[in-house]
């Protein structure tokens, strides 16, 4: 970069913004003010600043030297009479990455703390590119009971590979399972990404789930509703027997503790059984006789039970 340069024969006084009769102090002050604004190393991205700084520096070189200033004032030399030797600015080295010793990542080191940005700005040695592989997203539909009790499934991957997925007991609809290291491979020795599997749980004809609790509606025969007794109740982990207290009405809710969906740490939600009293499927004359007697004994109509 040592080509012949035509410096504009601009007025050095004008360049520094001082009067013709400015004192040496005033000239220095003016130059310092401009240098602080224009020095190329203080303006790493501004090419124009460099040109202006050169002009201003040349002007200062001329006017700060009493002898040269006098000669310029007398018209013996022109404004381009002196030029400082070409200085190679630090910014040029820094921009080419030739100053790794000095360049600091403190200006964005905190970006690595943010989840989203850590992939871009964190976990990376300076210089050689090391990138974590990207995550892969999959969706998997599982049966209601498999989600609650846990299961193993296989996902077919595009390149005729398969991915073994363990569905942990208690998995919820919409839950995302992360399989570490099963995503895309990393670059330059970076760790591989993860496989993210979003679980969609199919509905069940009998059970519904709210949080970790299971709800089920259980029909019971009239005699058990009136007299109580032991009944068999379906739960996600298999049928259990429970006692219905005598005189249980439709809508009565019984709780089976720990029979809901498993939680992490060994606990589990509960199952809530809503009873539904059922008359026998076919008309039963014996029962009808019984109820007729029962109504007569009470001496009032059936509407009484709904009245007040």
């Amino acid at each position, binding site marked *: 970069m040592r080509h012949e340069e035509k410096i504009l024969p601009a007025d050095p006084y004008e360049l520094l913004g001082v009067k013709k009769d400015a004192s040496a102090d005033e000239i220095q002050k003016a*130059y*310092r003010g401009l*240098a*602080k604004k224009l*020095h190329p*190393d*203080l303006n*790493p*991205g501004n090419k124009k600043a460099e040109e202006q700084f050169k002009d201003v*520096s040349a002007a200062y070189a001329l006017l700060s030297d009493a002898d040269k200033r006098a000669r310029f004032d007398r018209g013996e030399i022109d404004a381009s009479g002196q030029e400082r030797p070409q*200085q*190679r*600015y*630090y*910014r*040029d*080295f*820094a*921009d080419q*990455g*030739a*100053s790794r*010793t*000095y*360049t*600091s*990542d*403190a*200006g*964005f080191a905190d970006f690595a703390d943010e989840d989203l940005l850590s992939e*871009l*700005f964190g976990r990376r040695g300076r210089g050689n590119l090391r990138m974590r592989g990207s995550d892969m997203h999959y969706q998997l539909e599982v049966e209601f009971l498999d989600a609650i009790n846990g299961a193993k499934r296989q996902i077919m991957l595009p390149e005729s590979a398969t991915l073994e997925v363990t569905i942990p007991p208690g998995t919820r609809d919409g839950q995302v399972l992360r399989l570490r290291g099963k995503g895309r491979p990393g670059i330059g020795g970076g760790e591989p990404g993860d496989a993210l599997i979003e679980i969609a749980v199919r509905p069940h004809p009998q059970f519904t789930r709210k949080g970790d609790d299971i709800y089920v509606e259980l029909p019971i025969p009239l005699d058990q509703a009136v007299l109580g007794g032991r009944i068999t109740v379906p739960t996600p982990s298999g049928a259990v027997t429970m006692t219905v207290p005598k005189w249980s009405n439709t809508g009565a809710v019984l709780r089976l503790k720990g029979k809901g969906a498993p939680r992490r740490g060994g606990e589990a939600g509960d199952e809530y059984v809503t009873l539904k009293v059922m008359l026998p499927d076919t008309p039963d004359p014996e029962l009808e006789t019984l109820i007729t007697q029962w109504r007569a004994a009470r001496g009032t109509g059936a509407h009484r039970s709904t009245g007040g």
Partner: protein
Amino acid sequence: MRMREFLLAARVDATALETWVTAGWLIPRRDEEAADFSEADLARACLIRDLQHDMGVNEEAIPIILDLIDQVHGLRGMLREVATAVCAQPDDMRRRIAVEIAARASLRADRSETDT
């Protein structure tokens, strides 16, 4: 380059240079106990010299300025890498990123307007 050559090229004296190296403003490579200065070290020394002599920056402010400049270059380097990575993306993706950046910039401008 060796110390003598460096002092001449940078137009600084040996005492000043020693102070700068001790302060960590300049970090020359060392081989067999002698300092070996690079072109980048030279340019950096010229910057320190300009700060001190031409701009009248005092001793205490120099490391602050150097640190900020080093951070700016770190940021510039990273910004360039990000920009280069964006440019390597397909057209559609590049356009989406450009729109996103523009939208965020104008959002920020709006916010700072309402703040003041």
